[in-house]
């Protein structure tokens, strides 16, 4: 009887899921480490995978500059909501799976040395749904931006309001929009970044209200879910419906930006958006960021070590998308 040696990697499982990811767009098998290195964008077809809140913060902010605030905010169960599972169990399961307390992370950080108040959503936590905690974090981020007169950045990734919190989740639309109105009145800028997906009550509140709206290529962005739409109207949906490019074509997104250029574009915009000090004579004075050694050294290093994935010149979003798709 032949001795069967245990094989280290069974043939059937040549692409174990913890090492490989199949691109849903081009079916290419991607090595996870390389995928992470490429900011989770498929190098073959440019498909943008979803980013966790932590990875998103890493990719946007100056390294080591993020200081998280309101870490301890956690949802209650105001309705005593039970479907297949009680709501608190769902929250607990999501916390275990993601290591987050809710679907948003917020704090203060810098981009090219300019301080920003930032709030980032994580789709992995109950579909990024907005309940009291997400609404509160977005609102507090806006209030901090207002108090410190620094730009507000929100990166959305959400299916919409959280059903399990009922109308109290709906009221988060009012809470966040009201805070953004105050920001606008105080002339503090707000930059909204929509990633895949940004739908429902999140799209119909803070995500759509940016002074500048950026979106990632092919991100699903829309108000009503496809099933709702299909169930209500008996007509075929146009191709590319509710995608970032659709929103761009109809004038609700300023720029569709490839992820590798996102930080660069945000930094570029911040140079214009950073609130101006209003002088006593009514003139405006640009506030320059304080000197930041890390940013300075990083910019030097960028020049010393040319990186093919980091184009020096800002590439127009449309062109870069076509390049990525082609």
């Amino acid at each position, binding site marked *: 009887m032949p001795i069967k040696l245990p094989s280290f990697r069974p043939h059937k499982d040549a692409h174990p*899921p913890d090492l490989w*990811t199949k691109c849903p767009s081009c079916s290419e098998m991607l090595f*996870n*480490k390389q995928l992470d290195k490429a900011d989770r964008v498929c190098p073959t077809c440019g498909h943008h995978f*979803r980013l*966790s809140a*932590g*990875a998103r913060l890493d990719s946007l902010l100056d*390294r080591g500059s993020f*200081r998280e605030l309101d*870490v301890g*905010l*956690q*949802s*209650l*169960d*105001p*309705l005593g*909501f039970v*479907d*297949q599972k009680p709501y608190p169990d769902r929250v607990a399961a999501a916390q275990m799976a993601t290591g987050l307390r809710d679907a948003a992370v917020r704090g203060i950080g810098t981009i090219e040395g300019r301080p920003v108040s930032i709030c980032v959503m*994580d789709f992995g936590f*109950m*579909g990024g*749904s907005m309940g*009291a905690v997400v609404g509160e974090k977005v*609102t507090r981020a806006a209030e901090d931006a207002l108090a410190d007169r620094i730009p507000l950045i929100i990166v959305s990734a959400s299916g*919409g*309001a959280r*059903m399990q919190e009922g*109308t*109290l*989740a*709906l009221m*988060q639309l*009012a*809470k966040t*929009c*009201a805070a953004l109105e105050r920001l606008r009145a105080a002339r503090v800028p707000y930059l909204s970044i929509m990633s*895949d*997906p940004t*739908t*429902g*009550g999140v799209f*119909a509140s*803070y995500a*759509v209200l940016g002074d500048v709206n950026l979106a990632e290529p092919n991100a699903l962005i*829309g108000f*009503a*879910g496809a099933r*709702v739409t299909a169930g*209500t*109207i008996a007509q075929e949906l*146009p191709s590319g*419906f509710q995608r970032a490019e659709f929103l761009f074509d*109809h004038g609700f997104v300023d720029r569709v930006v490839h992820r590798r250029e996102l930080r660069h574009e945000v930094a570029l915009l911040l140079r214009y958006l950073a609130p101006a000090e209003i002088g006593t004579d009514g003139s405006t004075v640009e506030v320059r960021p304080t000197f930041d*050694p*890390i940013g300075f*050294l990083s910019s030097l*290093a960028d020049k010393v070590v040319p990186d093919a994935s980091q184009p020096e010149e800002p590439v127009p979003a449309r062109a870069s998308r076509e390049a990525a798709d082609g």
Partner: protein
Amino acid sequence: MVDRLLGRSREAPPDAPLDAKADVWRRVQLARNLRRPRTLELLGEMAEEIVELHGDRGFGDDAAIVAGFARLDGHRIAFVGQQKGADTEENIRRNFGMPHPEGYRKSMRVMELAERLGLPIVTFVDVPGAHPGPESEERGIADAIARSVGLMSRLRTPIVAVITGEGGSGGALAIAVGDVVIALENAVYSVISPEGCASILWRTADEAATAALAMKMSADDQQALGVVDIVVPEPGEGAHADPVETARRLRPIIVGELERLGRLPTDELVEARYRRYRAMGAYTEVAAPAVVPPPVRGLGDRLRDLLDPTRWSGGNPIPGPSRRDEPPAREEV
């Protein structure tokens, strides 16, 4: 309150006490009743000198939303409300009361005008939801709703919102941000339709009644949650049975609130409205895991970081959670 309890017990057969699920479902049906009085019917009963205004000045006029001026007990007001049709023909013209973006933009135009003229605003909410569909998305339904909500949060004039029938999600909230929110007894208010909620969480729309109960969408429950301030009892079997009496009950309450709000200094009024919504949502602040204070980093540390290639590509890959790429929970509106 006593009236209402009596009213309810009159409707229930004495030997079959209503269970909670059947009760809330009965209210959903009443809120959707085809003969339920709409904005124009209620105003027609309670106000004089009604003038309707049309058009959003950008695209067109949306018949699903009506807006204009009226005189209520001597008070000049601006009104905005959704208007469902009473029959199929009117419903087609009014798109079953589901507004497109231009409807909300018309509403915003009239509300801004009201602010400039110093007129208080009364809104009537009765909508299954904003119209879902390509035209709506193309013209920016999300943008219209968000801007309307934002506008109402800061308007420097009193706003009384009345939920008269269905308070369907963002399409309702877009005209329901107010200093005081009144609901008719059988009105319902929810973040998503009970059918939508059931089809997502229970995987079948047949559980709509269960979802309606779980979402606590009845006017009483909404009052308990603090979303609704005042619940107005309906006559007999419901508002549709006696629209005149419904308007007669509603009118003194709206007028009373307008007078009360009119006496407040404007700054106080707007601040109180902001606080009303600022306070909504139930969360707790648990002791966070020991927060590592941001280290004061010396130049040496920073240079060491720069030379460490593993920290170059914008941080280390996050294992586990970042691999998730499941289909979006799109219907969670």
